[in-house]
Each structure stands twice: as structure tokens, then as C-alpha cells.
């Protein structure tokens, strides 16, 4: 098979699992590795995330040496070179000894600035938010222009790296996951108000938060959905899933808060994706069992949901006729168990979750640290599913 035929075959595995009209040829395997392949390598984390040659070496090696059908992260999550030139600094603290990145919250909107934001969001973003968030844009207009040019050129360099990696791993039959799309809630936590500030605002000034997000929506929707998924030409190598939608903080919200502040945006994106023929992977951090009633409102066959802390068999029983389920093997077992124990658990997961389709095997949580799995165990379980997950 040619590189493109291999890519199409793998894409079909994911489309069949998510579309739920037929069982795929076999259970697809999605990687949940983020910085793990880097921190178990000979390189420093802070070094690799700024060096596309080393990043390529790491992720190509990971695709070659394990049996995943798709990589979810492959260096896009922490694009340090873009952050560096724009001056998005101070909120990531690297510890190369431990192989960790600590995130420090940064507020770019004060609570008494909501009215100003709502009155003219475009002006606020241009004049206040961007220079606060991307500090190298502050100062003279000439400085802003030069910083923007540098940022765009680094954005292009990231795109070139992704294109090169996509082509190389496609020859192995491995696809990259598609572009990311965040909820306003998570954007608010990450960029505008921090976790504590956002949760406090939702309780104290919910109408203002909602008004701010409604004003922000047209700017964000064009940049984050319309431009990449509607107006840009499709990439030469298809992604495994088109849109990656992390739900980072939603597990902290009550069912009612989620229904008011987050769900309408997800439903809207899912409806747009249905019209556009795109698939969505919802990456649910924490436990989201209290939100299942909303997931049942997703259009059937457009989304798959990665569960981190939920009982995945219960999730499949409740949601399994409606959307595809991703996950399964615990990081604790991958790190502490024997190869045989890991394979036994993988067999149980496949036996319980694969029948009828709508299941994608994956590590149960984001693999970021050295202790998130032993390489021989990760290789054994992914190989088991590749060889034995046939329908």
C-alpha cells in the first residue's frame, strides 16, 4: 500500500469506530502520550520542545516502536518557540530533572474590566489582552509588528514540522489527530481569569461572564473553527479525527453550570461538524459522569469521548449506542504491573468494550511523567490490540 492508502485505511478504522454504522476491521488504538516519550528519552524536555529535529526524532520513533494507530499529541500542545517569540512567558516552569512543566496562572482580564470587554471586545483584545498575554507585542507599533512577524514565521515552522511528521508516520500507517478547539470556559481559565477567578465569576457575576463569552464567540469561532476546518484546504494526509476538543475543567462544574455555560458551545460545534462531515474527539479530564445526559444529546456518530477517571464500562453501557468511547488501560498498571498483567487487563477491556464497535483503545490518562508507564508494557498492550482486536 502507498503512504496515502495506509493513511486512508487507518482513517477508515477511526471513521467506522466513531460513525457507529459498522464495526471497524479492528479496534483502533489512540495514543494518550503527551510528554512521556520525551521524558523517557536522552533529551531534556525544555530542549526538545524548542527543537523540531529532536521533536521529530522522538515522535517518529514513538510511532515506529509502539503500535498506536494515531498520535494525539506530537508536540503541538507546548509550542515553545511560538510562545518564546510572542513573549508568552512566566506561566510555564520547566523542571528538566523531574521531566515536568508546572503551569502558573496568569490573568489578562481583571474582574472590573468585564464591562469594558463587553462594550468593545475587539478593542479590548487588541489593546489590552494580547499585549498582556503576549508581552513582546507591548511597546511600540514597530515592536508589535516585528513580534507578530516572528510569531507567524514560527507558526509556519510548526506547520512544516507537523506536515513532515504526518507524512513520515503515515508510511507506518499512523495518523496524527486533527486541530484543537477549546471551550470558552477553558480559554477563560487558561488565559483570562485563571481557575479560581473563573469559578468565582461564574458564581458571582454569571450574566457578565455569559455576555463576555457571547461577545468573544464570533472572534474565536472564526479563528478556531471556520478558518481551520471550513475554509482551509484539507491536509494532504488526513488526520485520524478532525477536531480535538479538550474538556479540561468541566469536571469541576456542576451539571447545571455545565448545561448553561459549556454545553451550548459543544453542541453548536458538534452540529457544525455534522454538517461539515468532521469527526470530534472530546478529551474529558477528571470524572464527567454527571455530564452524560448532555453527551447523549450529541449527534449520533460524530464524536468519540476519551474518559480519564470514569468507569469506562459504565460509560460504554450508558453512552455506547450514541457515541464512541476511548480509553481503558490504567497508567498505574502500565507502570507497576508485569507485561502479563497488562495484557490480561487489555484482553478484558477489549472483550468487554469492543463488541458492536464504537470503541477505541487508549491509555486511560494523559501520559506525561516518567512513571506513567514502562515502555515494554505500553508496547505489549498496543501490540495485543493490534493483533487481537480484530472483529
Amino acid at each position, binding site marked *: 500500500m502507498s503512504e496515502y492508502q495506509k493513511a486512508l485505511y487507518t482513517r477508515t478504522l477511526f471513521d467506522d469506530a466513531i460513525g457507529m454504522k459498522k464495526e471497524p476491521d479492528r479496534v483502533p488504538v489512540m495514543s494518550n502520550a503527551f510528554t512521556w516519550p520525551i521524558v523517557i528519552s536522552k533529551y531534556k524536555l525544555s530542549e526538545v520542545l524548542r527543537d523540531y529535529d529532536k521533536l521529530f526524532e522522538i515522535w517518529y520513533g514513538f510511532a515506529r516502536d509502539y503500535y498506536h494507530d494515531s498520535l494525539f499529541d506530537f508536540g503541538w500542545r507546548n509550542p515553545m518557540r511560538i510562545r518564546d517569540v510572542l513573549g*508568552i512567558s512566566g506561566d510555564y516552569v520547566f523542571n528538566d530533572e523531574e521531566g515536568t512543566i508546572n503551569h502558573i496562572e496568569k490573568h489578562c482580564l481583571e474582574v472590573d474590566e468585564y464591562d469594558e470587554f463587553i462594550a468593545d471586545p475587539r478593542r479590548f483584545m487588541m489593546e489590552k489582552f494580547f499585549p498582556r498575554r503576549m508581552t513582546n507585542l507591548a511597546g511600540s507599533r514597530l515592536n508589535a509588528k516585528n513580534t507578530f512577524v516572528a510569531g507567524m514565521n514560527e*507558526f509556519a515552522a510548526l506547520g512544516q514540522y507537523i506536515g513532515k511528521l504526518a507524512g513520515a508516520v503515515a508510511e507506518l500507517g499512523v495518523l496524527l489527530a486533527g486541530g484543537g478547539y477549546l471551550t470558552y470556559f477553558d480559554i477563560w481559565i487558561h488565559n483570562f481569569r485563571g481557575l479560581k477567578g473563573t469559578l468565582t465569576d461564574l458564581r458571582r457575576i454569571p450574566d457578565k461572564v455569559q455576555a463576555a463569552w457571547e461577545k468573544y464567540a464570533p472572534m474565536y469561532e472564526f479563528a478556531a473553527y471556520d478558518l481551520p476546518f471550513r475554509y482551509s484546504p484539507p491536509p494532504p494526509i488526513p488526520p485520524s479525527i478532525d477536531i480535538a476538543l479538550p474538556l479540561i475543567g468541566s469536571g469541576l462544574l456542576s451539571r447545571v453550570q455545565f448545561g448553561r455555560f459549556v454545553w451550548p458551545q459543544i453542541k453548536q460545534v458538534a452540529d457544525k461538524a455534522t454538517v461539515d462531515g468532521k469527526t470530534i474527539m472530546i478529551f474529558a479530564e477528571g470524572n464527567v459522569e454527571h455530564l452524560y445526559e448532555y453527551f447523549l444529546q450529541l449527534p449520533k456518530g460524530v464524536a468519540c469521548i476519551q474518559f480519564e477517571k470514569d468507569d469506562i464500562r459504565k460509560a460504554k453501557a450508558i453512552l455506547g449506542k450514541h457515541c464512541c468511547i476511548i480509553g481503558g488501560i490504567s497508567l498505574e498498571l502500565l507502570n507497576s504491573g508485569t507485561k502479563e498483567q497488562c495484557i490480561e487487563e487489555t484482553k478484558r477491556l477489549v472483550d468487554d468494550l469492543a463488541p458492536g464497535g464504537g470503541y477505541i483503545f487508549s491509555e486511560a490518562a494523559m501520559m506525561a511523567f516518567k512513571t506513567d508507564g514502562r515502555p515494554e508494557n505500553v508496547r505489549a498492550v498496543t501490540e495485543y490490540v493490534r493483533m487481537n482486536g480484530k472483529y
Partner: protein
Amino acid sequence: MEKNIEEEKNIEEMTIAEVFEEAKKELNFLPPIDDVRNGFGEVFLTTFTVF
């Protein structure tokens, strides 16, 4: 030198949105679409916000 001073002066009189439109002339890379209806700088800085 004289040209640089002139360029700096003109840029400093622009709105920030105009500055980002001006920046397009210096890019090695442009998105493969014509329609960036919300303004070039706004769209891509919003994209960078997720990083």
C-alpha cells in the same frame, strides 16, 4: 537609516490592527485562503491564544 526612521514614524501612527495588516508584507508564510474576514492580526493572535 532615514528610511527606517520614516517607516517607524508611519507605523507608530497606525492602529494596532493596521500594523498587523502591514506585517503581512514581511511574512514568509500566508494562510492558503483569501478570506480572513475578522482581520489578519486578530485571527492569528486568537489562534495563538490557545498555546
